């Protein structure tokens, strides 16, 4: 069994694709067959990935696996190699947790749709492709997996053809996605032209000699390509439509895995293959990209009237956070970025599942037509609040921990380099965090609190199988926040170290010593100093006791409580009715679009332009993508010089 672990990475991916194939065949006939295939494949591959944790994280090994045992011959990689280092496995863990929970969630969530056979196939294909993408060591294999991922994602977006704008979103996603993959493919081609190899480790070794204009052009193209996959600003437009139109279990997978794949691709490209992150100007370009994404995402989210579209824009802005943090170049920055990616997967997944639950129960996700669901769906409200608190970054939850890392990293970067730009980045990060809190307050008030509209009085809580994934995710959020020193030692430190030690990556893949030969030297990666000695266990005791004390204060007060009527509709018991100046309560729900009037009035100019840019036309989106890519390539050329 010991040496069988070596095969686990490939087997994990193959099981998923096999499941997809089987689901296509047996999927139509019976529900049980579909469910068995889905759950078994998902759980098997998850088990395999989790089995790798001790090897990679605890012992720090880098597992390699050559397809068909085609070992590198005479220093040249001839086969497709899988390489799993701490960074790869870290993202693999995210991918695995996301699609397990989404699978469980979709059992009941998708039961009202038809063609569930196709759904299972596409879902498994998507999971398999993202897992493959994260584990592979070969750059063309990475591209193929990206293609399959885009393919499955487009199909899943268009799954609920009847829903508002699903087909249109899918088409836009396909067009922009294929532009992105076209750029990635041409980048790979140019790289191959330069290095005649496709294995990332060897590429990194060969490229260490110096970058010719062709490889600089390749870097530009691939950065743009992965930028499209990670939905950074100029390329973010299809993401908003896709996440909104796709069923929630799929949008959870999108925001949990698909944009993380883009982020992984960028990190791998910039840190390991090209090892170009020692140049500050490249860092600044990526940071600018990340900051603009962060800011544009959250401001657009504030202007939304649809729950899932709001969450979609938040995903874009949180990815902006991750990219900004990762491209800071310091160990603290990268670990902050990775931590935020992990937290983002947890709380954004939770929020999308809550959106799905609201859609499942109330039939609509329009903020202006919902209201007062907290009495009918107490569990979903609780989970949503945990998700909202953690995305806003309030202390006991995980959002705070990762944001703390990021601010710490950004500010230390600003202080050490004396460059005012990083201060602007830090300030924007804080302001974006407040705006995130604002938009989630808007959703809380619009959807869960306030007055229950009459037509929603028959709403009931969502079934148990949908609440289990939400519970798991919210536990993850709370644990991430409270036990973050543990998380950073076991998961983040190795992953950050892996990012900063490409030579280990190369040696593992191509055999020892190739790194020295190629002159690859690792930057002195400082040990990851956990920023604060904040001992969360202490906090926990503290907070619990303090809460207990104050509940006593509440109890000593007068004990008469109002009868909580659950008819929701009209309350006529004057004593416990809402104060309305003595009137009988009229339908008076302060819904999403009425909030933050002061803020909206001041930002009217900005919002008019921003919403104008998101015109919804495919051509505009395509032109943004192309212009963005061209600008990025020109900037990268400026950085690396034209000689």
């Amino acid at each position, binding site marked *: 069994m010991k040496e069988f672990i070596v095969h686990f990475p490939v087997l994990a991916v193959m099981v998923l694709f096999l499941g997809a194939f089987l689901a296509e065949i047996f999927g139509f006939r019976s529900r049980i067959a579909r469910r068995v295939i889905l759950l078994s494949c998902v759980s098997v591959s998850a088990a395999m990935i989790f089995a790798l944790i001790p090897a990679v994280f605890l012992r720090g090994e880098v597992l390699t696996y050559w397809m068909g045992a085609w070992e590198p011959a005479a220093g040249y990689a001839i086969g497709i190699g899988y390489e799993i280092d701490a960074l790869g496995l870290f993202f693999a863990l995210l991918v695995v947790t996301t699609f397990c929970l989404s699978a469980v969630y979709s059992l009941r969530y998708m039961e009202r749709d038809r063609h569930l056979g196709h759904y299972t196939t596409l879902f498994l294909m998507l999971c398999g492709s993202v897992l493959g993408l994260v584990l592979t060591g070969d750059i063309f294999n990475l591209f193929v997996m990206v293609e399959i991922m885009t*393919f499955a994602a487009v199909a899943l977006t268009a799954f609920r053809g009847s829903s508002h704008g699903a087909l249109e979103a899918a088409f836009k996603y396909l067009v922009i996605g294929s532009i992105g993959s076209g750029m990635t*493919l041409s980048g790979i081609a140019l790289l191959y032209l330069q290095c005649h190899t496709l294995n990332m480790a060897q590429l990194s070794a060969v490229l260490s000699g110096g970058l010719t204009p062709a490889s600089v052009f390749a870097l530009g193209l691939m950065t743009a390509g992965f930028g499209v996959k990670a939905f950074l600003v100029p390329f973010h437009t299809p993401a908003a439509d896709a996440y909104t139109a796709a069923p929630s279990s799929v949008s959870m997978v999108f925001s949990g895995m698909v944009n993380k794949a883009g982020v992984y691709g960028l990190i791998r490209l910039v840190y390991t293959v090209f090892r170009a992150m020692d140049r500050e100007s490249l860092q600044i370009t990526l940071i600018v990209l990340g900051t603009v994404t962060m800011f544009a995402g959250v401001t657009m989210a504030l202007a939304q009237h649809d729950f899932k579209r709001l969450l979609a824009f938040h995903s874009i802005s949180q990815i902006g956070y991750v990219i900004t943090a990762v491209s800071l170049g310091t160990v603290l920055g990268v670990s902050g970025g990775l931590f935020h990616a992990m937290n983002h997967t947890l709380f954004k997944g939770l929020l999308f599942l809550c959106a799905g639950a609201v859609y499942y129960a109330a039939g609509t996700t329009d903020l202006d037509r919902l209201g007062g669901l907290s009495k009918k769906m107490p569990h979903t409200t609780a989970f949503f609040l945990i998700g909202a608190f953690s995305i806003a970054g309030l202390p006991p939850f995980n959002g705070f921990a990762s944001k703390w890392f990021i601010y710490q990293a950004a500010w230390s970067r600003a202080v050490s380099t004396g460059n005012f730009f990083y201060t602007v980045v830090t300030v924007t990060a804080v302001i974006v965090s407040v705006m995130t809190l604002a938009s989630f307050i808007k959703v809380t008030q619009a959807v869960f609190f306030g007055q229950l509209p009459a037509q929603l009085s028959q709403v009931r809580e969502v079934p148990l199988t949908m609440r289990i994934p939400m519970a798991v995710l919210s536990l993850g959020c709370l644990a991430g926040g409270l036990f973050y020193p543990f998380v950073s030692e076991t998961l983040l430190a190795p992953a950050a170290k892996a990012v900063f030690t490409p030579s280990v990556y190369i040696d593992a893949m191509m055999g020892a010593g190739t790194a020295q030969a190629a002159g690859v030297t690792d930057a002195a990666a400082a040990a990851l100093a956990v920023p604060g000695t904040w001992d969360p266990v202490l906090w926990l005791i503290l907070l619990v006791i303090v809460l207990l004390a104050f509940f006593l204060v509440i109890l000593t007060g007068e004990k008469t409580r109002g009868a909580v009527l659950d008819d929701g509709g009209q309350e006529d018991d004057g004593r416990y009715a809402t104060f309305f100046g003595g009137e009988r309560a009229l339908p008076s729900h302060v819904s999403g679009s009425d909030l933050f009037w002061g803020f909206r009035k001041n930002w009217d100019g900005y919002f008019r332009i921003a919403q104008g840019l998101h015109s*919804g036309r495919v051509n505009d989106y*395509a032109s943004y993508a192309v212009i963005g890519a061209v600008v990025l390539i020109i900037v990268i050329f400026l950085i690396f010089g034209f000689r």
Partner: protein
Amino acid sequence: MMTVNYLTAAVLIVLGLYCVISQKHLIKIVLGLGITDYGINLLIVSIGFNLGGTAPIYTLSDLMNGVSPVYFVDPIPQALTLTSIVIGACVDAMALALVIMIHRKYKTVDADEVRRLQG
């Protein structure tokens, strides 16, 4: 000689992108995508070309008597092109399917009308 290939590939890619950006008709956009795809395929194939190289195939006779032909054309880009062509085909198929369904549902294929999700 190779520069002609690269130039045509570049022209094809730019033409395709221009078509995607400027055309309002959805099917024309899909065609634009196809053109870019062909441009990229041409780029990949022309990378693997070695002047005077023969097709990278060992005939039975070469294998039998152990002689290795003088010079091959690089086989890997060709493999890449194969995959890219397959992917291009799938993309076009799915795009056209989507366009048909959009037409059925939106009753139009003009990109200006097909924009319910905006803002």
